[in-house]
C-alpha cells in the first residue's frame, strides 16, 4: 500500500501546480491538433475556392451547357468546343482498367502475404513493395509506351501506339504495391484471436482469409484501394505518355484518348498562350478532376460505412 500523508492523501498525490501544468499542456496539445486539422481543411477549401473562382468566368463565357452537354474537347481549334466528357471518359476508362487489374491482384497478393507466405518472405516483401511504390511515374510511363504497348500489339493486331489499355494496365501495376502494402497493414491489424478462432474451428487458410480476415479488415482495405484509386485518377505521366494527348470521347480501351490530367499537363507545358480562353479551360478540367476524386471518396466512404456501421 502507498504511504498516506497527514490529511489522508496518498504521498503520490500531485500538487496543484503540477495539475495546472498538466491541464495547460493537454489544452495546448488539443489546440495544436485542432489547428493542424483546421489548416488541412482550409487548404482544401482554398483550392476548391480558387478552382471555382477561376472556372466561373470561363463558364459564364462559354456556358455550362457547352461544357456538360458536349462530348468534343477542342479548345485550340478555330471553332473551339469544350465538351469535358471527352476527357472524363479517358480518365474513367484508364482508371477502371487499372482497378480491374489492381483490385483482384492486390487482394490476392495481400491475402497470400498474410496467410500463406512463409514469414521470411513476408518480411522481405514489405520493403520491396514500398520500393516499387516509390518508382517515379515517368518510368512507368515509358515502360507502358516502350514495353507494354509493343507486347500488346503482338497480341492485338492493329493496336495503335497510344492506347488506354496499356496506360490502364501499367497504371494498375503502378498502384498495386501501394494497395497491397496498405491492405496487408489492415490485414495484419486484425486481432490475432480472430484468426485463431477461425483456424480452431477448422477453417482452411483460404476460408480464413476470405471469410474472416477480409471482412475484419474491410474498412482498412477499402481505404487502401480508395487511396490507390485516387492516385490512379490523378496520375499524369503514365496516361500522357501511353494513352496520348488526343481528347476523344470513347470508352474503348483499344483507342488512345487524353485524360483530364493529360490535358492539364499539356496546357501547363505552355503550348497555350497564357490567359487565353483555352488556358482558363484548365481550371474547369481541374475542377472536374477534383469532383471525380471527391465522388469516388464519397462513394467509398458510404460503402464502408453502410456495411460496418454496426461493427466495432
Amino acid at each position, binding site marked *: 500500500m502507498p504511504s498516506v500523508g497527514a490529511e489522508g492523501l496518498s504521498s503520490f498525490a500531485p500538487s496543484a501546480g503540477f495539475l495546472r501544468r498538466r491541464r495547460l499542456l493537454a489544452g495546448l496539445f488539443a489546440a495544436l491538433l485542432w489547428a493542424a486539422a483546421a489548416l488541412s481543411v482550409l487548404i482544401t477549401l482554398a483550392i476548391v475556392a480558387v478552382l471555382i473562382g477561376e472556372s466561373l468566368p470561363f463558364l459564364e463565357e462559354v456556358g455550362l451547357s457547352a461544357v456538360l452537354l458536349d462530348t468534343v474537347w477542342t479548345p485550340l481549334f478555330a471553332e473551339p468546343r469544350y465538351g469535358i466528357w471527352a476527357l472524363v471518359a479517358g480518365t474513367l476508362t484508364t482508371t477502371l482498367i487499372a482497378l480491374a487489374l489492381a483490385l483482384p491482384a492486390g487482394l490476392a497478393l495481400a491475402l497470400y502475404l498474410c496467410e500463406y507466405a512463409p514469414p521470411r518472405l513476408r518480411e522481405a516483401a514489405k520493403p520491396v513493395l514500398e520500393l516499387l511504390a516509390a518508382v517515379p511515374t515517368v518510368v512507368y510511363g515509358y515502360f507502358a509506351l516502350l514495353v507494354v504497348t509493343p507486347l500488346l500489339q503482338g497480341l492485338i493486331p492493329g493496336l495503335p501506339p497510344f492506347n488506354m489499355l496499356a496506360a490502364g494496365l501499367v497504371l494498375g501495376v503502378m498502384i498495386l504495391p501501394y494497395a497491397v502494402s496498405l491492405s496487408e497493414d489492415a490485414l495484419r491489424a486484425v486481432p490475432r484471436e480472430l484468426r485463431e478462432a477461425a483456424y480452431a*474451428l477448422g477453417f482452411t487458410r483460404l476460408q480464413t482469409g476470405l471469410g474472416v480476415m477480409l*471482412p475484419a479488415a474491410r474498412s482498412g482495405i477499402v481505404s487502401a484501394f480508395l487511396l490507390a484509386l485516387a492516385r490512379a485518377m490523378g496520375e499524369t505521366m503514365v496516361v500522357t505518355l501511353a494513352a496520348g494527348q488526343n481528347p476523344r470521347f470513347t470508352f474503348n480501351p483499344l483507342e488512345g484518348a487524353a485524360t483530364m490530367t493529360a490535358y492539364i499537363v499539356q496546357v501547363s507545358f505552355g503550348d497555350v498562350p497564357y490567359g487565353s480562353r483555352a488556358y482558363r479551360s484548365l481550371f474547369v478540367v481541374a475542377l472536374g478532376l477534383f469532383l471525380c476524386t471527391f465522388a469516388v471518396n464519397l462513394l467509398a466512404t458510404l460503402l464502408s460505412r453502410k456495411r460496418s456501421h454496426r461493427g466495432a
Partner: protein
Amino acid sequence: MTVAALPIPSRTAEAEERPLKLRIANLSFWYGRRQVLFDVTLPVRERRITALIGPSGCGKSTLLRCINRLHDLEPGHRYQGRILLEPGGLDVLAPHTDPLLVRLRIGMVFQKPNPFPTSIYENVAAGLRIRGVRKRALLDEQVEKSLRRAGLWAEVKDRLHDHAFNLSGGQQQRLCIARALAPEPELLLLDEPTSALDPAATAHIEALLSELKSRYTILLVTHLMQQAARIAHDVAFLHLGRLVEFGPAAEVLVRPRDPRTRRYLAGHAA
C-alpha cells in the same frame, strides 16, 4: 436434457472405466529455444470434464493449443512427444497429420470472447458451413440448438441477424461457446471461458458444462478452484510446465499429495 435426468454414477468408480478420448504422452513444447512444457503425460477421459489448473504462466494455454495444433500459426515452435486423439488414434503432432483433420474434430473457446465480425447467426453457422452444411433448415435448427445450449437463445432469438459485436462481453462469450458447440466436436477445449463473465453468467456456463459432459469430452482450463470442484471429474495440476498431480477431482482438490499442489490450493483458499 437436464442434469437431474441423468443417472448419477459414483464418480471415481466409473471414471476408471471410461475410454480415453485423448492420450497426451511425454509432451514437451518449446517457444523458440524456450521450453515451456516438460514431459507432460495426461489422459483425458471420454465424456468427462478434465480441469487443468495451475499458477499463471505455467503453460495451461500452451498445452491446450498443442492439442489442436494452434501453435502451427506462429513460426518457431517445437513439439516433442505424442498426442493421440481417439477413436482411431489420430497422431495429432505427427508431421504428416493434417492439422485441419485434428481441428475439425475439436472445438475451442478462448479466454477472451472473439466472435467473427458478422451476424450472430452466421457466427454460430460458420463451423457448419465450412463442414459443407448447406441446407437452410438444418442450419437454422443447429444454430438454435447451439444457442440454447449456450444459454443465449432467449436473449438473441429476435435479433439473430444483428452484428455479433453489439452483444455484451458475456453474451459474446456465450456466442463463442455456441459457435464451438454447433459442429458437435468430439472434444471441447475451454481456456478459462468464464474469466470475462460475472458470477451469474459464470454459474450459467458451469451449469451448461455439467449438462454437456454427457455428450462431449471437455478439457477445461480454470483458475477457479471452486469451479473445478463443482464440475470436474478429473483435475490436473500444472506447475512450471510440469504435470505435478493428476487424479479424480475429489482427491486432488481435497487431499493433494504433492506439496506444490498443496501450497497452490492453500494460497487460493486464503
